[in-house]
């Protein structure tokens, strides 16, 4: 906490730069896992830094910089998903939803677990990443995703089910 407060009151670009360097990679990795898109992840992380730096003086707990940053990355990803839905992915999503015969188990049978993770629906992937990469509890994940605890359980359960199917197929193949 002292470190961050000192940095800000010191008011030097170098200090912000240090903070940026220290947290960039972890933030980028989290953004990549929740979006599955490297370029988008870089954009989200830049925007997240921009927001957190921009609001620095208003933070209740300046020592929680990393938590603020992480939360902002997830929030921006959620907004991006909503934006994308509204804009240009609407067509494909609607089409998929109207073809239940092409549901996830069929889609992922030939995919590796890694690919299957990246192909999970946005919210399922976010829930899984927050639970098993960021090591958040179900309640913390629910707070991060701004949804109910039951919704997180459902998202994780459905995501796990899709991934379980992948591993079963992989094991059968190997």
């Amino acid at each position, binding site marked *: 906490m002292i470190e961050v407060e000192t940095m*800000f009151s010191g*008011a030097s*670009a170098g200090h912000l*730069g240090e903070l*940026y*360097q220290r947290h*960039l990679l972890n933030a980028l*990795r*989290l953004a*990549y*896992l929740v979006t*599955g*898109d*490297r*370029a*988008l*992840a*870089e954009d989200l992380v*830049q*925007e997240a*830094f*921009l927001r957190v730096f*921009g*609001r620095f*003086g*208003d933070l209740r707990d300046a020592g929680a910089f990393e*938590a*603020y940053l992480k*939360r902002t990355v997830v929030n921006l990803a*959620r*907004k*991006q998903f*909503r934006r994308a839905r*509204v*804009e*240009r*992915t*609407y*067509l*494909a*999503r609607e*089409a998929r939803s109207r073809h239940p015969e092409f549901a996830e188990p*069929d*889609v992922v049978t*030939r*995919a590796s*677990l890694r690919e299957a*993770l*990246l*192909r999970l629906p946005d*919210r399922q992937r976010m829930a*899984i990443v927050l639970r*098993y*990469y960021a090591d958040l509890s179900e309640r913390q994940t629910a707070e991060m995703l*701004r*949804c*109910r605890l039951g919704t997180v359980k459902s998202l994780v359960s459905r995501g*796990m089910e899709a*991934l*379980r199917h992948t591993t079963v197929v992989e094991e059968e193949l190997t």
Partner: protein
Amino acid sequence: MNRLESKIRHTLQDLADAVEPPAFGLEMPTPLLRQVRRRRGRTSAVALMVATAIAAAAIAGVRFLPRAEPRPADRPIKWFPGAVEFRLLYAHRMFLYRVNGDGSSVLLGSGGENEPDLNGDPLSWSPDLSKVIVVRPSPCGGGPWTQDNQDGPLRHQYLILNADGSGEVRIAGLSTLPCTPPGPQRLRPAFEGRPDLEVVGFVWAPDGSKIAIADRSVVHIVSSSGEERLRLPGSAVLGWSKDGTRLMVYDGQRIILTNEDGTDARTITTGVVPEGAQPTWSSDDQQVAIAVMRGRPAEGDGKPIRTSILVADVGTSNVSKLVDVDGSVQAQAWAPDGSTLAFATFVSDPSQSIGGVFLGRWQVWSIRSDGTRLTRLAASEVPGGEGNAVLGLHWAPSGSALGFIARDPNGRQGLYAVHPDGTGLTRLALLPGPGIIGFYGLGPFAWMDNPTP
């Protein structure tokens, strides 16, 4: 921890470890500092610090504004006669460009001390480009930004602004959700996961006097001064007739032509038009293009999807197939005279991936309304999914050019223009690089009615 959880943890860690520092390195980009200054205000300590950094950058010759890149050398340039002007909203700010005959561009407006800060996501230009609609979210609770309210319940305001950012008017009548305090959600189940308002489709009447706005199942008719005048059912607005007296709406199943007060309504298509078909009304009022996806999504099983583009005759309600194309259709736009349809497709390629991110290919096409002269105008491989691969396909008022926003192989968004015959492909503007200020991206843009000669 069971075996699957363990596998997932290891796989996630492997994926994360594969993410290396970005191409622009670990150094904080100077434009980021500049953005911090804008958001903090000039009086804060941060602003003073950043202003110093910006001054140093300016002295060093660092440029922040998007500039047109050199035109592609492998395409012959038969550019538009004279100059072309367009307006572009970029990263929350308005820029007015003139594009010269050689494809280079000149920034005419914005920048410097007078740069308007529209402070909101841009949505739509008025026909004369004098006004712009933006959406501005704010925490319901107001007060300082904190972890609790920075992305808690939001109140979205839809505003009409003058193009210089002045004259702010709130659009009345749009639905809104009640603000809820942080903590357990009290939203209706239908809105779970998307607690904010998602109003889409702002369509200005040709004379700019009114706007049709789709707000879930209601179409609001709003005056240009933001006052609500009428409501009618519909989930999307396809456009106004040329004389501004009739409105075409989509209700989730049918395309309906109606007066703005809901009278004299007539269904254009007898069959069900699926959601996501992007019905597009021609500017001569005669035809509606409908993109219907066939087959299964390309993800996973390698079987590509295809899309049929159908055309419905407004007068007779006859529907005929115009063309079948590979992939999904991202955007459609009729030429001003209704003779040609331009459309953008996206094909994902599950066999090609970089670091787990699939590659895809967007293509922009034109085809005559009689189904002849299918011509590919532009194409590019792009990383990632189809989201935002191609946005905003717009014809110049003269019909001599098409403009669109698309991503390049490096994932950067650019504004492109091309002749309808595929010649003269030129990049007019480009985001300065991935991750700099690219989150909001380019757009929307609009062609000027009367290009400067």
